[in-house]
């Protein structure tokens, strides 16, 4: 019972460290890899419909680690990720196809929209609560960042999908 949350916390923590140390050397045109967001989105996307407690747990853990390793106040990312997670689950239930529960197109679309939402809302919150200086806007570096993150997310999605399919076949 405790194995799943324990592994989830360890994974988020490990990815947070990787993101803030190893991948800081792989910044392309201002685009930074957000491994915690990718992991959070994968967890939420592959989670069963109506498992709201788990979705809440993923949002709290991912948001907490994102806030700890950034200069934002604790709680901003938790609230934003919670909102995004519930939106994703709601959209997924509307988009669900009969043949394929987890379509790549749906994943890519939802991921991109969620990532843009999170980035812009986070910048707005930082503008309001932390440094009221420059109002956030859609920039070239954000586009590069989406593409960069999407590449990794799609790769992880394909691996996870295979794994989820195997589990489903066994069941």
């Amino acid at each position, binding site marked *: 019972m405790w194995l799943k949350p324990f592994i989830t916390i360890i994974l988020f923590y490990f990815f947070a460290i990787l993101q*803030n*140390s190893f991948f800081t050397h792989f910044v392309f045109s201002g685009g930074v890899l957000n491994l915690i967001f990718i992991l959070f989105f994968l967890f939420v996307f592959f989670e069963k419909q109506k498992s709201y407690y788990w979705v809440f747990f993923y949002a709290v853990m991912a948001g907490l680690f994102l806030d700890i390793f950034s200069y934002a106040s604790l709680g901003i990312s938790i609230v934003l990720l919670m909102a995004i997670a519930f939106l994703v689950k709601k959209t997924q239930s509307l988009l669900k196809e009969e043949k394929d529960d987890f379509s790549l197109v749906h994943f890519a679309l939802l991921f991109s929209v969620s990532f843009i939402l999170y980035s812009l809302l986070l910048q707005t919150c930082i503008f309001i609560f932390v440094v009221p*200086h420059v109002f956030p806007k859609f920039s070239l570096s954000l586009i590069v960042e989406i593409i960069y993150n999407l590449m990794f997310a799609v790769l992880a999605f394909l691996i996870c999908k295979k794994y989820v399919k195997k589990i489903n076949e066994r069941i």
Partner: protein
Amino acid sequence: MNVSSASSINKKKKNYLKILSGAIIFCIFIFVLNIFSSQIKNYFYLLSSPVQKTFFTAGESLSGILNPFLNIYNLAGENENLKKENQNLLSQISLLQATGEGLQASFDFSANCQDKNFTTVMASVIGLDGQDIISINKGSSDGILEGMPVVSQQGVVFGKIFAVYKNFSKVMLISNKNSVIDVKIQQKTADPLMPEINGVVRGNGGFSIFLDLVQVDQEIKEGDILVTSSLEKVFPKDLLVGKITKIEKNDQKPFQQAQVEQFFEVKSADNLFVITNYKQEN
């Protein structure tokens, strides 16, 4: 009112109560987190610092190996630029030798520190935030305070201390969108009779900066060097900021802007220096 509709109203009421109590508990949780924010962040830093440093060094080595392959298409252009830059530097050397102002153009930071009695704390970069913020391994226990300038050994400005924790600090790079610093422009053909040209360097995000607020009638050229002017009393004067790469002049605007190639390089910055007594000196 029948029994089934009454029970459904009761269910709805219970659900609302559940959501409301959940929201209240969540708000208290966030509030408590923020009371202990500094301690929580510092604790996680202490816990993960050794692993983070190891991964940071590993990433540095790997990017050093991969960068030549990733930039192979830019090598020809870069070579051409370096040749031009070399020629420019040679002409500048001869100019400085001729005018006897070689000492003025010297930006050796250690010498600068000795001259101005600056006290510095050496720190290592341990991480990077996506918003042009870096973490360094020195904090309030090392005498670091918010607003202190952070420079490299060569006297290149990186930014200023933005948040301080007990054992580490966050540095807002000059490329952060919230960063604005006063600069003066050092022209290639410096004429001592010409008035000093001042402007500001703003952060553009994604490790890029640009020059702003230079009056239209003032002549600036590509290749001119930007140094700090110390007007805002955050950075000591004559620290290196960047080099003008493209001027954007518009007659309809009262000020001209320019694209700037920044001198700071986060990837290759092993050690940084925090000037701890600049404000007191001024």
